[in-house]
């Protein structure tokens, strides 16, 4: 088995806010991320897939196909969007880096052909990233 990782980038706005809490509670837990005017990041997405090397093509997976899936399912939906306001999975779920990783996993899991999704890593910034590997 070989692991293969492909990167993509998207730039999005978000804020952290729980409607069930007061403004003070939100600010206490989420700090400046609770500013309802939002703020943004350049996210880097790393998608790792696992599979056997095809003896003919020498590929674990068709890189172009993987790139296209990531572009279609994630980048086109998230890039230059406000995650809370424009991406359906974050209407009721706070778009933390952890939840973004889980949401991207759900978007990709059934769409990757010929290999198994191994890990989704989302960098919110170079010093902060979240990994989701499914429920195994």
């Amino acid at each position, binding site marked *: 088995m070989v692991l293969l990782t492909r990167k993509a980038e998207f730039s999005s706005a978000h804020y952290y806010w729980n409607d069930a809490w007061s403004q003070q509670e939100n600010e206490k837990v989420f700090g400046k991320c609770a500013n309802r005017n939002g703020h943004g990041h350049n996210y880097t997405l790393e998608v790792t897939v696992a599979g056997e090397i095809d003896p003919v093509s020498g590929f674990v997976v068709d890189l172009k196909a993987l790139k296209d899936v990531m572009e279609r399912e994630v980048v086109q939906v998230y890039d230059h969007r406000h995650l809370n306001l424009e991406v359906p999975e974050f209407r009721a779920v706070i778009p*933390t880096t952890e*939840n973004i990783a889980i949401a991207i996993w759900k978007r990709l899991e059934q769409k990757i052909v010929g290999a198994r999704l191994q890990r989704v890593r989302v960098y919110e910034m*170079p010093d*902060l990233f*979240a*990994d*989701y590997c499914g429920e195994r």
Partner: protein
Amino acid sequence: MKAYLSRRYRFSASHRLHTDRYSPEQNQAVYGKCNNPHGHGHNYTVEVMVSGEVDAVTGMVCNLGDLDDFVRREIVDRFDEKNLNLDASFAAIVPTTENLCLEIYKVINATLAHGKLEKVRVEETANNFFEYAGEPASAREDKDSS
């Protein structure tokens, strides 16, 4: 759902790789220029990976502010702008980045209240880094029980 959160921290410290168990010649042979009696320094980067269930309310594995406060207090403040050889944990062992990585893992693992510590990675330079994820037996048990 279980997710992993990683955060990077930085500190700058000096050290000298030297052991009294070796002769001066052996120290020089093993440690090379790292054995310079006057020491030298690095800008270290520590990457801390914690795991846990994503809290249904906050959407977080752990509160990042709390984790930052904890790591800065326990690790960054302790080592930043210090001579590692003078730290009590390196009184009897050489402050290689391997040993530094183990010490950081031990300190964080002992008192971390913000999720489960999965791995500590210490980068000494852009080209040298060391990782410790606990001992394999416990790691296997953790994996089995997750």
